[in-house]
Structure formats: structure tokens, C-alpha cells
């Protein structure tokens, strides 16, 4: 199964978008007089999760590009 680099790049937007919205939500919540720290912790865990997912997608993109370079030179 071959993937298009554009599709992988597109897939990367999803975790990046979630990370941005989560981080901005956490910043907003910290402005409250008594922030819900349990929820902020949950947000940080989600950010870590999304970041790992993004790193996995990036790895696939790198592998694909490496294969293409190798395939092109042989």
C-alpha cells in the first residue's frame, strides 16, 4: 500500500489542530479564579497523546521520502 505524501501531511494537521486548541483552552482556563486543575491535567495528557500521534505520522512521512529517494537513485 503506497501513501501519498500530501495525504500524510494532511493527516498531520489533525493532531496539530487538537494540540493548538487544547493548549489554548488550558491557557484560557488558567485565567479563572479557581482553575480546574484535574481538567487541565487531562488536557495536558491529551496534548501528549496528540503529540505522539503527530510524531508517528511524521515518521511515516520520513520513511516514505527516504524510500522515494532510494527508489529514485537505483
Amino acid at each position, binding site marked *: 500500500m503506497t501513501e501519498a505524501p500530501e495525504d500524510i501531511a*494532511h493527516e498531520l*494537521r*489533525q*493532531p*496539530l*489542530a*487538537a*494540540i*493548538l*486548541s*487544547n493548549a*489554548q*483552552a488550558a491557557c*484560557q*482556563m488558567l485565567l479563572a479564579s479557581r482553575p480546574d486543575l484535574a*481538567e487541565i491535567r487531562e*488536557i495536558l495528557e*491529551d496534548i501528549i*497523546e*496528540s503529540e505522539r500521534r503527530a510524531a508517528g505520522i511524521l515518521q511515516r512521512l520520513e520513511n516514505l521520502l527516504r524510500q522515494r529517494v532510494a527508489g529514485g537513485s537505483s
Partner: protein
Amino acid sequence: MRQLAGTLFIVDDEAEMRRSLTRLLRSAGYTTRAYATATDFLSAHDPAAPGCLILDLALPGMNGLELQQTLTSTGCRRPIIFLSGRSDIPKSVRAMKSGAVNFLTKPVEMHDLIAAVDEALTIDEAERVASSERHGVTERLATLTPRERQVLGHVVSGRINKQIAADLGTAEKTIKVHRSRVMRKMHAGSLVELVKLASLVGIQPAANSHEVGQRH
């Protein structure tokens, strides 16, 4: 924190997007509801509830543009903010032409999203006010007798009682009575107000007064 009323209906198939958008918008003071598919949204949808849609373009099953069409075809004018994974120009043009309020590309900056949401809620509210006004005027219009309805058409075209009386073959005094009844029934305080109310329900002044009168 928020002055604008209404619920933000989020439709996105990715759980992490639903969660993060919900948190972000709730932290900014909005009320939200999130759905994984267009079908889930439609089955829970109450068109009478104020609010706007934050809609993922590339949903599995019924996609964002199809949901937009479905809503439009049922006469629902709920404002839509599209979120897209990529900057798809042809699709965004199509969405905007079909009445979408905005088209944002993921990742979305908080202040861009909030500006779009506030714009959409303002449009939704204005649309609801206009719609309820139209409804009220339609009800009042229905209380007019056929003759009063006829006089209304002449009055909003700027014709004076004497001309209307001549056109309808009756006494000026009678027209005066009809006119004041029309004003009262339509809850209009002035001619300008009456013209405005009439135009809300599609009664426009005749371009040429002779068309109304058929005097000769």
C-alpha cells in the same frame, strides 16, 4: 462572559478535535454540543434553537457540503463555519456561495475561530429577529379585509386618499376610515413604518402610481 446567545454545534469525526474544540469554546464561555457524524447532528437537530454550526468538511458518510445542502433544502438558515484539513479552494468557494459564513483551515487559531463564531451567532440572531418580525406582520396582514388589503397597496405606493378614492370608485371619507384601520391593524405609527412593515412581507410600493390606480 458571553453576550451572544446560541449553541455551537460541532460536527467532526475525530474525537480529539471534538474534545479540544469543545474545551476551547467552553473555556471562552460558549455553550457547545458535539457530534461525530452529520446524521447524528441531523437526528438531534432543532432548527428553532439559536446557534451556529462548526462543521468539518471531510466527514465520512454525509460530508460537510452535503449537510449544508440538506439544511438549506429544509429552509434552515443556520450559519455554518467550515473547518477543513487542507485549503481546498474549489470546495471553499462552493461552501461560501451556498451561504457559509466562514471557511477556516486546521489548525485554527483561537481568535480566528472566536471571531468567526461571533459573526455567525450575530447573523443567526439577526435572521431569527427578522423571521419573527415577518411572522408577526404576516399575522397582522391576515386580519385585514380584502378592501383594506387593497387600500394598503395604494397607501404604501404613496397615493393620497383622494387618488385612492377615485381609483376604487368610492368616497374619500371611506378611504380615510380604511386607511386608519389599516394603520391600527398593522400596528403602524406612521406611513414610513407601514411601508417598512409591508416590505417585510413582500408588499412593495408600485414603481408607477398609475399601475396601481388603472385610472384610464
